[in-house]
């Protein structure tokens, strides 16, 4: 240990800081089993009474060695592991991984339109499900119990539909390199349309209950204000960055898959209830994104029921490449996951191998969470709960 003291410096410094703080102030452990930390996140708070002076996040409780696994499994075998990164939006993860591999193989232009539309459809359904969890659990953090139950009730419809398509409720392994596991089951489009019609009035109800709720607004407006430049410098993306007022969505910037053919807006935070970039804005961006995702789902259904109709001889596995051996290269694939910019960095150095030399994940939650020490300075402990909820991270993706 002593030989590498230069490398241990920071650890000793940190331990010294905690033991000093325990004399003057109070060191409070929030988590890893705290309900409002949304998983196994431990926050060490240095508090002065009710005021949080410093937040030190400790992550890694859910580390499952994704990158080590990716180095020993083939590209196809890793897809189930990507599902477990952001387990609330598994479809988006595998979509990003698969698009990256297809791009490296050079087959990204050969994917049939119907497959692309099905992919976007299930991704957007999954995005709605993920945002519903964010909204519902945010309500419960603040003290509103009913929205939580309502959101889970509606999310259950999406889970049921995706289970029908893929055979699994949360971890789908549905999107494959070059195609899909199966085509959509017969009657899926009709069921999905039924859901959209059912869900739209429910969103109005939810807005009346939570979004415009005066207690909720008092707890979230002007709390945890994240200015745009700070958000960019900390690498925040997705609803967290858009909540700070920047119109930045990779679905529009990169125009991947069939998103250029689809019509949707990018909601941004406007500071309606308080300051731009506060917790309420981040929350509102998610609510608006659900509306936009519903709009995308409807457009996908229109196409899938008309010109891209199911035919008896359509085989979603027809284009599966027999060997997944890309050329020697490295490639950074990014796409807009439910929480923000989800990136995969592939390094491939052997032309005959199906296994990447190195695979790195850039999890949006990881970066969104890293802004917490900045946001959590000099706030009340109760406000810290509101800030954590508004960042909407998933520990499966933070720890990987």
């Amino acid at each position, binding site marked *: 240990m002593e030989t590498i003291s230069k490398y241990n410096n920071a650890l000793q410094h940190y331990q010294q800081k905690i033991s000093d703080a325990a004399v003057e102030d109070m060191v409070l452990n929030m988590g890893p089993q705290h309900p409002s930390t949304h998983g196994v996140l431990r926050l060490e708070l240095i508090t002065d009474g009710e005021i949080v002076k410093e937040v030190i996040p400790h992550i890694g409780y859910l580390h499952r060695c994704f990158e080590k696994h990716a180095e020993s499994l083939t590209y196809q075998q890793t897809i189930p592991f990507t599902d477990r990164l952001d387990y609330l939006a598994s479809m988006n993860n595998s979509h990003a991984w698969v698009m990256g591999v297809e791009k490296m193989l050079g087959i990204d232009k050969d994917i049939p339109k119907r497959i692309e539309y099905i992919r976007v459809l299930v991704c957007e359904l999954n995005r709605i499900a993920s945002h519903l969890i964010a909204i519902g659990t945010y309500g419960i953090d603040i003290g509103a119990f009913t929205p939580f139950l309502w959101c889970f009730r509606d999310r259950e419809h999406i889970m049921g539909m995706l289970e029908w398509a893929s055979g699994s409720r949360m971890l789908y392994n549905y999107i494959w390199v070059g195609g899909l596991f199966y085509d959509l089951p017969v009657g899926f489009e009709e069921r999905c349309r039924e859901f959209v019609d059912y869900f739209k009035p429910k969103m109005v109800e939810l807005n009346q209950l939570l979004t415009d709720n005066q207690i909720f607004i008092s707890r979230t407006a002007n709390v945890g204000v994240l200015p745009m430049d700070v958000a960019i410098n900390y690498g925040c993306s997705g609803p967290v960055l858009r909540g700070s007022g920047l119109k930045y969505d990779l679905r529009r910037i990169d125009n991947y898959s069939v998103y250029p053919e689809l019509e949707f807006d990018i909601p941004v935070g406007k500071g309606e209830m308080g300051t731009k970039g506060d917790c309420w804005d981040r929350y509102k961006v998610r609510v608006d994104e659900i509306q936009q995702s519903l709009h995308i789902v409807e457009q996908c259904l229109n196409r899938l029921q008309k010109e891209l109709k199911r035919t008896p001889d359509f085989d979603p596995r027809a284009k599966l490449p027999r060997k997944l051996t890309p050329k020697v290269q490295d490639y950074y694939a990014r796409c807009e996951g439910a929480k923000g910019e989800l990136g995969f*960095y592939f390094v491939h150095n052997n032309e005959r191998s199906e296994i990447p030399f190195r695979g790195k994940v850039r999890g949006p939650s990881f970066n969104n969470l890293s802004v917490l020490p900045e946001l959590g300075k000099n706030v009340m402990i109760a406000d810290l709960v509101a800030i954590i909820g508004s960042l909407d991270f998933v520990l499966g993706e933070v720890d990987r």
Partner: protein
Amino acid sequence: MSFDDIKLLLTQKFGDDVITGEERTGLQPALLINPDRIVEVCLELRNNPKTYFDFLSCLTGMDYGLEAGRFGVVYHLSSIPYHLQLTLKISRENDRSEDNLPSFPSVTSVYRTADWHEREAYDLLGIFFEGHPDLRRILLPDDWEGFPLRKDYVAAEYYKGIKVD
């Protein structure tokens, strides 16, 4: 701005020795940067009104394998106003001994998001970042031995006296 324009901009500003090479084989070309000057390069790319690479998408620590004996860091920069992407690579030779970790300058002063990414690279690959404000392990426990993502890593048989199956 194209890749060549960025390269020209950097050589004009810092001289020829700042760029040690380039890779154009894949879909995304990469610039190989002199490791000692990465902070200035990042700062210039971030602040120059022609590039504005204000968003560090990803920072990856790399172990290039036992034969190569090299360690490196790969930076994926992204420019929000201009919708550009750029890959920078730095690397150094290293003998893999425990008291001589490969060491690179930290870019936390330019991009705060590099803080946790560099801690992760230190944690999993044993890459030391000079000037990092708080370089502790992030995903693994503080008393973990070894760096698991290194190519020569062998999983320990015992963890705190408990046999690992």
